[in-house]
């Protein structure tokens, strides 16, 4: 059903990490098709904010809504279903090195309740095409370059057709040229209608790919124009 409701919204939310408040009074919306950069210094609270969005940390005060789930009312049993509506990409969320690309992706589909082998095969082909890796089904991760591995990670995040992709430093370990390729993959995904929230330290991206910017600084999140 078509709706104008934001894919993600936070209102007067306080973000906690280990009982300590790291960000206060956070309010912003992300709509379908938005591309949003999240910037800020290391330790400023970006990761805590993202963890709260995918319910690795609980939202203790304020309100939030992600992919139709109210964060302040979220129960532990709802968390897996929220995460199926979000694609998560970050540096230490690695591939399983002991199985090939297709098996890595099939594992995720099985873990999220897919049963039909044909549908799984088709969906795997679709997401690999989407990230430009249509011919690498049977390759082992160690046979892929860093950029290709990260594309597989992005493909994995896209398997369940998420409403929003949350990426925490997805190009942090890649050289600039490869990082650029990954950015283009994100652009393609975004153009096909998936919102993207991407934490980054790469300010070149902000210039080359103009988009909304949320700055995390001094315990606050503020919207910034270029």
């Amino acid at each position, binding site marked *: 059903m078509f709706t104008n409701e934001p894919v993600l919204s936070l209102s007067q939310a306080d973000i906690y990490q*280990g009982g300590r408040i790291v960000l206060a009074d956070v309010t912003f919306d992300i709509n379908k098709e938005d591309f949003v950069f999240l910037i800020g210094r290391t330790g400023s609270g970006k990761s805590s904010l993202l963890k709260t969005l*995918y319910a*690795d940390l609980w939202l203790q005060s304020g309100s939030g809504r992600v992919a139709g789930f109210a964060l302040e009312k979220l129960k532990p*049993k709802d*968390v*897996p*279903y*929220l*995460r*199926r509506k979000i694609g*998560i990409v970050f540096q230490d*969320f*690695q591939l*399983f090195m*002991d*199985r090939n690309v297709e098996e890595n992706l099939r594992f*995720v589909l099985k*873990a*999220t*309740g897919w049963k039909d082998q044909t549908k799984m095969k088709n969906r795997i082909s679709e997401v690999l095409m989407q990230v430009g890796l249509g011919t690498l089904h049977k390759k082992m991760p160690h046979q892929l370059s860093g950029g290709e591995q990260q594309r597989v990670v992005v493909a*994995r995040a896209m*398997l*369940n057709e998420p409403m929003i992709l949350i990426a925490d430093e997805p190009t942090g370990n890649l050289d600039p040229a490869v990082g650029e390729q990954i950015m283009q993959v994100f652009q393609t995904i975004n153009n096909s209608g998936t919102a993207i929230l991407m934490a980054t330290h790469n300010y070149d991206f902000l210039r080359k790919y103009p988009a909304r910017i949320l700055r995390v600084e001094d315990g606050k999140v503020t919207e910034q124009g270029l």
Partner: protein
Amino acid sequence: MASKKKVGSYPGGMILFSLTSALFLIGFCGMLVLQSKKLVRYIRENNEVRVFLDKDLDAGQQKKLYDEIIKKPFVLYTGTTPQISFVSKDVAAKEFIAETKEDFSKFLNENPLRDSYRIKLREDYFEEVKLEEVKTDLESVNGVFEVVYQENLVDNINKNITKIYIIMSVFAVIMLIIIVVLMNNTIRLALYSQRLLIRSMQLVGATNGFIQMPFLRRGMTQGLISGLIAAVLLFVLLQLAIRNIEGLATLQEPEKTGILLGAIVILGIIIGLISTFQAVHRYLSLSLDELY
């Protein structure tokens, strides 16, 4: 190529060995209980109360006395036959002489012994207090001179059996605690070594049920295998014992032994399942930071 890291896999040799040992010991205790119960029942049902009669009773009076005794609730029946036997004073004299090798008839003119009834009692009257009541009851019957039973034997057997049951129960409980702790620690290590895999599963939206399932399946399988090994070992041990211990064959109740062995297998599955469930559930409830 390295083998795939399967979720729920962990080194199971130690668990299999410990669980089998625990189940074997529990089964062994169970078997001892079965054998001792049968033995006690045998002893109890063969424990006789001797009712000595007055000397001047004629056959009619003895019959009347017999009819009165068989109505008593404590008399053991086999089918419809009361387990009471009449021992005349002549038979008693022969038994006495055979047992003591002293022929009193050589220096006494008459047989000082009395006619008696030997009554086998129902198993539930095998307690000192109840036996005392039986004695009083029988002694109040006309024609009864004295009632005799072997004192202290009853209480001694009861006390010793209770002690053995308590020791066995404590032993079995300790074994169960050990196995639960062992499985808990092994699974905790397994979860730690697979934390990246589990974290990935959680982040892509796998439910805890999906993550737990391989662990539970493995726990159940280990319980089943341990139970089967323990049951086979117990069966072999029992057969060896029957061949080598005289009279043990008469105490066997194949149906109950079968139920016990089946119960050991089921217990293995239940222990495997519950231990795994509580360990996995506990560690999956931790936040990712705590798991790290």
